[in-house]
């Protein structure tokens, strides 16, 4: 009576658990996924091309809008790539403040991931708790640069302004309660049997596959490869910070959850060190009136919450805007591993796999 036929369905682009406008083409044999292809491009705005037509200074606002959950980390990559291109040295205090805000941003991004990922799988409660703390991080963003999400936090050569008065109080208030908040999330999830059933052993991606596909960030570290650009090629003030790179070897969704939770703890540690060791001094380097590129091309990689975000800039010597601009978006490259993780599994686990990738479509489609 029933024909043994494969069925093709679309997951998305308006599916709430695809985190934006991702469409996944699935071929199903019953409940098992036999073929899985992510289709992207629904949010393409041509950021790379736009930046080529704008000055080095103006380009930063577009990086905010790529990965809008971790705008500060994107800004940091952009300004550092430009400083390399323009040959500018940044004062030490600016480096510290950048590191501080970048780590806050990592916490905010991971909290968004935790909330939405848990909600996709069915744990709605965590979402509310995670967004409570994220609100505090956004307040800190707002206190520093005036905007909550699209921060445009840094400037080429340093920072626009020093820390505002009362900033330390905000940071200490956050740090004082954050570890107990993390415990709350873990109480809700870590041993929860439903959570474990939905994540342990689901969407495996081995270290070999991850490296072959160019996957970076917590995805790679959950497969047991301790590769973190903050340690491997230190930038900003990370060389002076003392922190660990958490890894797991199980390479499943649960391991990625553990890695990200541990990363938030390390971020809090780095923030504490930044606050303690904050040097005095100026926050802005002396800049020429008009920014002209000094060298021909740079590639600068930084560790965004999602993985390695690299900015490739070609600027002919003396030019006012980049001749070519390319972003190595971590989400874009991590997404390639979705077929590897989803094929052979159940369709319900595709949602868990997408969640554990922690993708933001603004960055994938650019």
């Amino acid at each position, binding site marked *: 009576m029933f024909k043994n036929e494969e069925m093709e369905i679309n997951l998305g682009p308006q599916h709430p658990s695809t985190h934006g406008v991702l469409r996944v083409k699935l071929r199903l044999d019953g409940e098992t996924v036999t073929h899985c292809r992510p289709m992207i491009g629904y949010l393409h705005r041509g950021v790379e091309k736009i930046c080529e037509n*704008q000055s080095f*200074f*103006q380009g930063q*606002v*577009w990086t905010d809008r790529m990965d809008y959950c971790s705008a500060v980390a994107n800004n940091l990559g952009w300004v550092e790539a430009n400083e390399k291109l323009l040959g500018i040295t940044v004062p030490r205090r600016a480096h510290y403040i950048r590191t501080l805000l970048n780590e806050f941003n990592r916490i905010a991004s991971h909290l968004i991931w935790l909330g939405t990922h848990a909600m996709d799988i069915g744990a709605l*409660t965590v979402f509310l*708790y995670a967004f*409570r703390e994220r*609100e505090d991080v956004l*307040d800190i963003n*707002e*206190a*520093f*640069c*005036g*905007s909550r999400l*699209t921060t*445009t936090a840094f400037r080429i050569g340093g920072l*626009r*302004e020093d820390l*505002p008065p009362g900033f330390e109080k905000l940071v200490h208030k956050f740090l004082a309660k954050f570890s107990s908040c993390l415990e*709350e999330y873990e*109480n*809700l*999830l870590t*041993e*929860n*049997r439903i959570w474990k059933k939905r994540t342990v052993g689901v969407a495996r991606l081995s270290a070999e596959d991850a490296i072959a596909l160019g996957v970076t960030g917590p995805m790679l570290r959950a497969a047991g490869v301790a590769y973190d650009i903050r340690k491997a090629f230190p930038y900003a003030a990370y060389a002076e910070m003392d922190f660990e790179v958490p890894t797991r070897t199980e390479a499943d969704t649960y391991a990625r959850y553990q890695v990200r939770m541990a990363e938030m703890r390390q971020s809090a540690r780095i923030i504490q060190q930044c606050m303690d060791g904050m040097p005095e001094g100026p926050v802005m380097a002396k800049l020429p009136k008009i920014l002209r590129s000094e060298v021909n091309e740079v590639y600068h990689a930084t560790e965004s919450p999602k993985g390695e975000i690299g900015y490739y800039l070609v600027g002919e010597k003396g030019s006012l805007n980049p001749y070519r601009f390319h972003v190595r978006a971590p989400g874009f490259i991590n997404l390639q591993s979705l077929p590897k993780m989803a094929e052979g599994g159940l369709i319900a686990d595709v949602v868990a796999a997408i969640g554990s990738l922690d993708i933001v479509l603004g960055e994938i489609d650019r």
Partner: protein
Amino acid sequence: MNKFLRTLIPADIAKGLSVTGKHFSQVFFTANRRKVPFHIVSEYPEVPAKVQPRFRGRLTLLKDEQGEIKCVCCLACEKICPTQVITIEKGKKEGRKMPFPVRYDFEMERCIFCEFCVESCGFDSIILNHQFELAAYNREDFSLGTEGLGQNMFELSPTGKFSVADD
């Protein structure tokens, strides 16, 4: 055996529930009785939201003590704006040495509130104010200039309006 007991006694679920219960009781039993309430939700439209001093809101032109527009038409803000939403027309005014902006058009719908214009202005003649309730029904309501009621760049934008064109 252990596994069986663990399945039977839902300690993990109880742990999660205790977190929820703790927060629930904190809020429930201390409602209206504590100076600093446990609940963190603000009743936004009734209670105005507070913003930080550096908040980036709508672009505002400043006037000096004599009520003159401070802007001297150096066009730095027009050039630096990443979305090109500022259009300035230079002009002259009686009894004023500096150039005077005959037109200072600002298309708010495309402004991304980046504050580059304020940063580039060497004469401190513009700021971003603290207003964030800027939604409107018509596109025309987003074109701001130096003239016009409710649409000029010196005062706050009217909130809760339907359209300037309706009046």
